[in-house]
């Protein structure tokens, strides 16, 4: 019995210590004067591997999700004779929810796991220690550019996702199922608002970007430097980040639209 309590205490302590370590990792990585000449190329490199390389999966999934929304929305709305509301339905679901959330989930799977594995391997092969011994702070050199790259990339990806998704809904709704072209866009326009919907969607994806990238980097940086440790850390990144995104999405939605 007491052993159980002790185990609980140990878990709690480890969790708190982990959260604290994650916090200080980020703090040390981000606080301090940046050296633009040296950090700019690093940021570019990471924007490329984190952002540009995720573009394909984002565009393809955005297109399909938009098309499915168009199809499903049409079959439901046509029963009420309200198929002209297809535009706002597709646009609002994408801008408010699916754009930021699905992008964050895909990002966690595509880029987050890669970040964790990369940093975990750098740790396992002593590259991080080696940087430290060279007097180069790995938090600045390795963690910081990756963090900013994730933070900047994800909102861009989310916007691309929403835009492509709306186009997919348009393809199915207007081109295929014959919703009136003008009504599709005009009803959408009268229901979608810049500040309420688009900006809030961007804020959501910024929050998700922060959390997902942070989790991915911390899991990599604190993983056990063995092959089992890295694989666990990678899995843990995807699971933790996805859960965090879904949980935070509820909170944010309640705050923004509740």
């Amino acid at each position, binding site marked *: 019995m007491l052993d159980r309590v002790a185990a609980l205490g140990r878990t709690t302590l480890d969790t708190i210590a982990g959260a604290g370590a994650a916090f200080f990792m980020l703090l040390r990585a981000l606080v301090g004067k940046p050296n633009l000449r040296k950090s700019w190329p690093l940021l570019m490199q990471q924007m490329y591997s984190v952002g540009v390389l995720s573009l394909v999966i984002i565009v393809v999934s955005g297109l399909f999700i938009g098309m499915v929304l168009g199809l499903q929305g049409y079959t439901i709305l046509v029963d009420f004779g309200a198929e002209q509301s297809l535009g706002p339905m597709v646009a609002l679901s994408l801008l408010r929810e699916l754009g930021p959330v699905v992008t964050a989930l895909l990002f966690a799977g595509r880029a987050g796991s890669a970040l964790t594995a990369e940093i975990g391997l750098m740790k396992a092969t002593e590259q991080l220690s080696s940087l430290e011994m060279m007097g180069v702070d790995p938090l600045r050199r390795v963690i910081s550019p990756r963090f900013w790259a994730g933070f900047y990339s994800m909102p*861009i*990806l989310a916007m691309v996702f929403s835009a492509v998704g709306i186009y997919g809904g348009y393809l199915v709704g207007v081109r295929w199922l014959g919703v009136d072209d003008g009504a599709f*866009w005009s009803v959408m326009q009268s229901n979608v608002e810049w500040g309420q919907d*688009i900006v809030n969607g961007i804020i959501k994806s910024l929050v998700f970007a922060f959390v997902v990238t942070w989790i991915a980097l911390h899991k990599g940086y604190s993983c056990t430097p063995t092959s089992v440790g890295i694989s666990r850390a990678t899995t843990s990144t995807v699971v933790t980040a996805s859960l965090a995104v879904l949980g935070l999405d509820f909170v944010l939605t309640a705050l923004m639209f509740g």
Partner: protein
Amino acid sequence: MESRNTQLAVGFFVIIGVLALLFLGLQAANTSVVTNGETYKLYAKFDNIGGLKERSPVKVGGVVVGRVSKISLSGDYYEPLVEMTISTEYSEFSDTTSVSILTSGLLGEQYIGLNPGFIDETVEMLKDGDQIYDTKSALVLEDLIGQFLFSQGND
């Protein structure tokens, strides 16, 4: 040169992001950015606001000129007070202007219709914070049915 290609790719990436944002902003959202520029506030009291919500549009002849920014109860009798935020582009409403709560279509959203009043030298223009007294409340379906049945009974 590898870094140059990387930079090019990232550059295109950012451009695609900006294009997506422009598409969303111009094509998907209402571009007549009412309530984002200069605005002023008008108030109106109703007996019943029906399904009116904050952010419901305020229209003149079908054209959106503003939005409902706040709904509250005021006065001793707890009458609904609606605060409307109107674009200063449309600042020339006289105090004979009337407001009514209307419904777009049978199942549509409710909105506020402004009917501009006549203008001559005896009337004043509405200013920021003024209240419109000529109001027509929302049609509530139950009341309508009740009225209908009542009038049937009288016949």
